[in-house]
């Protein structure tokens, strides 16, 4: 590979990574794209629902980009930064148009317009979708455009390559990466003038989640250990209804409950009768009992917690973490309507949900926290983009387009995009905002990366990567080679898969749906124990070719580090906010905690250092997260139901 200047490396080939590739290559900067899997197999394919953007129909009904921003902020319980969210909401319609031009088969109206659907957190139809696999369609569209640039030689793909470490120069600027071919095990240093981490979420820390097997968070954890801080790592989204599997948890759409599905557990613990043999009076419809008004349709977080609690008390089906979601009583017509999701259940469990109640449990679904990033707020004084004829925005309305600071971590030249970036979703992510934030990062902030790379070597940005001494890269290469050699040579007694399973079980129990100090302190002990055991690994594959065993063991070490940061931030945030629910601190406490938990890795102790960074609210003042309008509607419904019952 000829070393040209400037050059950019993108780590991760999901929506964020590919969007970044396309934008950076378009800006004329060659890109080296690294991915552990062929990029077309990235986890983005799993997103089903859709992508949010204000549109003409919604606009004529009173919706606006501003409201989209507002929904995102209140959804995130104001833990997100307002200027980036403003920019994202306002940029969203352009993204949809672009994807449309790229050929994404968005569902259509009879007139041939893009169809829209209603999604959580909004009263307006603002979600664009392509069948039941929107993420897959969007990823493929960006994959195709990337391939186009690849065919032109502007993008180089390194698929089946694992990111190991960011290379930083003397001044701490990111100047490349160390990566390893997972097939030949060849390890190499790559030079770059900017590096974009688009490495996704970290569900694997929880053992089983709804995420792909590649979402282990190791790449972000490695950057964290190399000096990039984490932001709000305690913010993890849990989906209330997933199908627990031996290998992973798969989503079960909420429409099953929407159409009349009932959630229950046997009244008797460890009742091993067939569910249909358990008479009505011996079933505990716990949601309906506790919330007679809303019943099975209580808000997501309540459903999640109740299911969690009932299992914690030992009433889970078969003594395990699962409850029944029963649609067997529904009329055939309704079952037909739910066919698509019922088939998924049948395919992966072998049971027909039309005949036997489904077994479901909440599962970790999305990582809102991630690498801490910065941005340059919009400033009309420095705005050179808006045409002279158009009115300029107010300060802080968005970000300064193309400013190299946008979504850069605290390590100069190291960027974080997509799910690995903490910026957009605060304490909870709204449905159908994930695809948006990923593509937005790539397309809007891609230019910032290209600009940074262009400026690299000029003044404050140090020497161009192509001119840095080889010894710098060799140093980091050796560090990684030594690390790998140490793991490969370990002859201890601890199986990495067992440690991983225990890590998952512990994290799921202590730091998902309900967090509580005592339990988390216990988990802290457990993590310390696992870290200790990790130093005594047993490696069953000592080969030097496509050694997945060693790769996994190495990533496990990074998962343990990330889990530690996640747990410590969960302990430190003594309030409840969004998806972070502390049973011992059930209120949101803005005075103390309307702050980003910024977590830095302490290289000496090997433990996290947490500082609290205030979040400015230049656009929308804080308010309670009540979903006012929705509640009115639902209150009315409750009253009607109560009236009907009496």
């Amino acid at each position: 590979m000829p070393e040209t200047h400037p050059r950019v490396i993108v780590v991760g080939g999901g929506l964020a990574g590919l969007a970044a590739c396309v934008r950076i290559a378009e800006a004329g900067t060659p890109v080296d794209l690294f991915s552990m899997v062929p990029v077309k197999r990235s986890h983005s394919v799993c997103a089903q629902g859709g992508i949010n953007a204000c549109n003409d129909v919604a606009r004529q009904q009173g919706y606006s980009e501003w409201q989209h921003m507002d929904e995102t902020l209140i959804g995130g319980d104001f833990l997100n930064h307002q200027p980036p969210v403003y920019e994202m909401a306002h940029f969203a319609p352009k993204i949809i148009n672009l994807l449309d031009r790229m050929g994404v088969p968005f569902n259509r109206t009879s007139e041939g317009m893009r169809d829209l659907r209603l999604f959580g957190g909004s009263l307006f139809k603002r979600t664009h979708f392509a069948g039941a696999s929107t993420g897959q369609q969007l990823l493929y569209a960006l994959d195709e455009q990337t391939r186009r640039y690849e065919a032109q030689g502007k993008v180089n793909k390194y698929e089946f390559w694992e990111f190991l470490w960011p290379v930083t120069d003397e001044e701490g600027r990111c100047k490349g990466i160390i990566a390893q071919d997972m097939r030949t095990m060849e390890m190499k240093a790559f030079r770059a003038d900017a590096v974009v981490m688009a490495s996704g979420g970290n569900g694997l820390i929880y053992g089983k989640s709804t995420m792909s097997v590649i979402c282990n968070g190791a790449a972000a954890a490695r950057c964290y250990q190399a000096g990039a801080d984490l932001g709000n790592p305690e913010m993890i989204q849990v989906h209330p209804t997933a199908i627990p599997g031996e290998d992973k948890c798969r989503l079960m759409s909420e429409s099953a409950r929407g159409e009349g599905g009932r959630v229950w557990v046997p009244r008797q613990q460890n009742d091993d009768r067939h569910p249909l043999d358990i008479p009505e009076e011996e079933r505990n419809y716990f949601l309906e009992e506790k919330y007679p008004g809303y019943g099975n349709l209580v808000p997501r977080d309540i459903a999640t917690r109740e299911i969690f609690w009932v299992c914690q008390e030992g009433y889970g089906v078969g003594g395990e973490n699962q409850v029944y979601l029963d649609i067997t009583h529904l009329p055939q017509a309704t079952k037909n309507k739910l066919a698509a999701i019922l088939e998924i259940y049948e395919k992966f469990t072998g049971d027909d949900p039309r005949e036997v109640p489904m077994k479901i449990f909440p599962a970790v679904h999305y990582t809102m926290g991630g690498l801490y990033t910065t941005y340059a707020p919009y400033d009309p004084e420095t705005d050179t983009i808006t045409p002279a004829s158009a009115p300029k925005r107010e300060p802080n309305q968005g970000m300064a387009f193309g400013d190299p600071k946008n979504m850069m971590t605290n390590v100069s030249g190291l960027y974080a995009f997509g799910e690995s970036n903490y910026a957009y979703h605060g304490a909870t992510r709204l449905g159908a905002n994930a695809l948006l934030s990923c593509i937005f990062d790539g397309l809007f902030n891609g230019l910032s990366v290209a600009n940074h790379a262009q400026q690299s070597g000029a003044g404050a940005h140090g020497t161009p990567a192509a001119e840095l001494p080889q010894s710098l890269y060799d140093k980091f290469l050796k560090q990684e080679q030594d690390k790998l050699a140490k793991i490969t040579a370990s002859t201890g007694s601890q199986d990495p898969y067992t440690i991983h399973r225990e890590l998952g079980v512990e994290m799921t129990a202590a730091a998902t749906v309900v967090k509580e100090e005592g339990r988390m302190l216990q988990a802290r002990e457990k993590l310390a124990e696992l870290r200790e055991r990790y130093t005594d690994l047993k490696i069953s594959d000592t080969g030097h070719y496509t050694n997945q065993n060693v790769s996994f063991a190495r990533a496990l070490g990074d998962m343990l580090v990330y889990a530690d940061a996640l747990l410590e931030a969960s302990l430190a945030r003594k309030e409840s906010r969004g998806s972070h629910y502390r049973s011992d601190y059930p209120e949101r406490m803005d005075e103390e905690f309307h702050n980003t938990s910024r977590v830095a890795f302490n290289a000496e102790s090997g433990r996290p250092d947490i500082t609290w960074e205030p979040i400015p609210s230049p656009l929308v003042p804080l308010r309670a997260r009540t979903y006012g309008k929705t509640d009115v509607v639902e209150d009315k419904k409750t009253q009607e139901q109560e009236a009907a019952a009496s």
Partner: protein
Amino acid sequence: MIAPNPSEKTFLVRIKRQDAESQPAYWQEFEVPVKPAQNIISVLQYIAANPTTTSGEDVEPVVWDSGCLEEVCGACTMVVDGQVRQSCSCLANEQLAKTGKDHIELEPMTKFPVVRDLFVDRQRMFDNLKKVKAWVPIDGTHDLGPGPKETPEQQEERYAYSRCMTCGCCLEACPQFTKDNTFVGAQAIAQALYFNQHETGKKLKGERLDELSGPGGVADCGNSQNCVKVCPKEIPLTQAIAKVGRQLTVHAVKNFFSAK
């Protein structure tokens, strides 16, 4: 490490292993405890954590490829009991019931070079996408308004093709697609059609058809129609082949009379 509990019901898994493409293949057998709703991936995960064969030999864990485990990423394609499929959606107990045997046989796909064990290199499929210019030639990422309108029927047809996850089942089952020929197979042909059907994608239709009329193109299809039967996404692959066949016929006649 964790020996199967003698009271537990178990079944056998025979795995065709290969240390690298250049190395000879060999079979190993493992005993795995029966669990409800256990897919092939869980079986492989169990073996990874307990890599001991039935003859008591401790071996290197089996290498395989997987991703989403929801049948959308296309990574975990394997040959299970002689038939190609996604291993994540293959439940062990159903498979045993289907074959009536006491064991499951896992092999890597035979049409692609083996990287190791069950892990194969499907780069050829991605290269073929490049060959048929499987993209819409947009003018760039600037805000240039919406894309072309299309009817719900057009969308529905294109959506079917756009679900192709490059898993390779169609190629594995195709008698015309072999390791040493150049046939592009159903996957690339269907993708060419997908883009030929898009208003802007059409701009490259001629180039795509030129590519597909050359060696390895559509004409190499032998109409065994296996592709459509093994496609996990039920993509109408044979219809795609026929439609591209029609486009090629028209293209050839047009070229004969009007090409320079």
